[in-house]
């Protein structure tokens, strides 16, 4: 099975850098994206498609989907649940051309 199985590795405090909307953000291995963003003072993760308002963390545990972002081309990943990886590209927008031929 590809997925990481338990026991989950303890947090190592090594640094991980990733891109969020063209900005390089550095976090700590084992942090979810939203946590790394918040640690760097970034609170707005996306904008509501209907009202245009900025949105960030609301429920923090994956129920509300407010903190979603496109991660490495996959849309709508919950950044509160998705761990940061070196070189990861996180974007507020959906890029539909990613999966096109």
């Amino acid at each position, binding site marked *: 099975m590809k997925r990481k199985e338990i026991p989950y590795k303890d947090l190592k405090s090594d640094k991980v850098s990733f891109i969020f909307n063209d900005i390089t953000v550095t976090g700590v291995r084992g942090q979810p994206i939203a946590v790394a963003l918040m640690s760097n003072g970034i609170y707005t993760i996306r904008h509501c*498609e*209907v009202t245009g308002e900025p949105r960030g963390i609301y429920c923090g545990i994956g129920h509300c989907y407010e903190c979603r972002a496109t991660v490495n*081309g*996959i*849309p*709508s990943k919950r950044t509160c649940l998705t761990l940061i990886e070196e070189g990861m590209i996180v974007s507020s927008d*959906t890029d*539909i*051309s*990613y*999966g*096109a*031929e």
Partner: protein
Amino acid sequence: MKQKVIVIGGGIIGTSIAYYLSKNEVDVTLFESKDIAAGSSGSCDRAIMIQSKKPGPTLDLALKSAEMYKTLELELEEDLEYRKGGGMILIENEFELEVIQEMVERQNQAGLDVSIISGEDAREKVPLLSKSIIASTWWSEDAEINPMGTAFAFARAAQKRNAKMELNYIVQGFLIENGRVVGVKANNENFYADGVVVCTGVWTKSLLQSINIDVPIVPRKGEILVTERLPKVIDCNILSGSYIASKLQKGNDNPYGIGLAIGQTKSGTLLIGGSREFVGFDSSTNSTVIREIAKRAVQAFPFLKNVNLIRTFSGLRPFTPDNLPILGEIPSVEGLFIAAGHEGDGIALAPITGKLMAEIICGQNTDFDMEPFSIQRFANMKI
């Protein structure tokens, strides 16, 4: 005194009839067991796809209905999300091309200027279409509408003309005196009227059975997938040619009757259909069908593999043996009318159905031959 008519069923057919009746100065009361658009009209896609309809009475009706849709937003003073974006039937191989070519020729003879365009031209119109699509049909007159929104708009427009919408009223039976319907019993109460029109779609058979009228309408389930909101990617209605082609092939390699149908809503979600199954009144969704529809959608639009499915639903379409709706008076009971059995054409045919039924109920002449839609056509049929 105003003519009093009871409409049973708050789907798009019932609300349309209620609207056109109230426009004709009829005193209308609509009984609905749950809510407006709570049944089939609230669980279907948005397409008013006409290019694929078989020439004959349904196509004639559909063309008239399509004309009415063009001005319906103005008439009802509501945004129905109407869009005339055109329609395509995708062609993946030579066999499909052959079948579709024949179909297009028939449509041309019937006066529809449907054409076949190359795969490249199709991708020009819909850039994210797969390169495996070799050709496509194109007809600019196909359109789309928000079906639920339209049913609500008909209901509200009827209410403005003093029609009454009685929601959560379950019609238990008909009041009949000397062979004439004089009203209905609903929620244990009697309601009287000069005429009653039954617009209960898949539930018509059981309702009319109470007065020994047999109607050959059976539910046919269709499942639909809803994706997350996306930027505008599809501007028209899209069907796959494979379903049309497979219908002509013998054998049963498509047990769920899956035929791809894709459209994008105003909010940006994609509605991806669909299936056609006779499984009674079971309206659950089936994982095999969901996966199969998704697979075909990804084949036609590879980018969809990285798009989220956020909801699935299924609707029961009122199927009749000859694929024509049943419209008109029921001969054995004076004053009792039926407008049901539109299967997948309910949305497309709603305005014309409402208008014609209102004319029939008011005793006016219709400028349309209603014979093919008469319930009498089933009189000699073994059901």
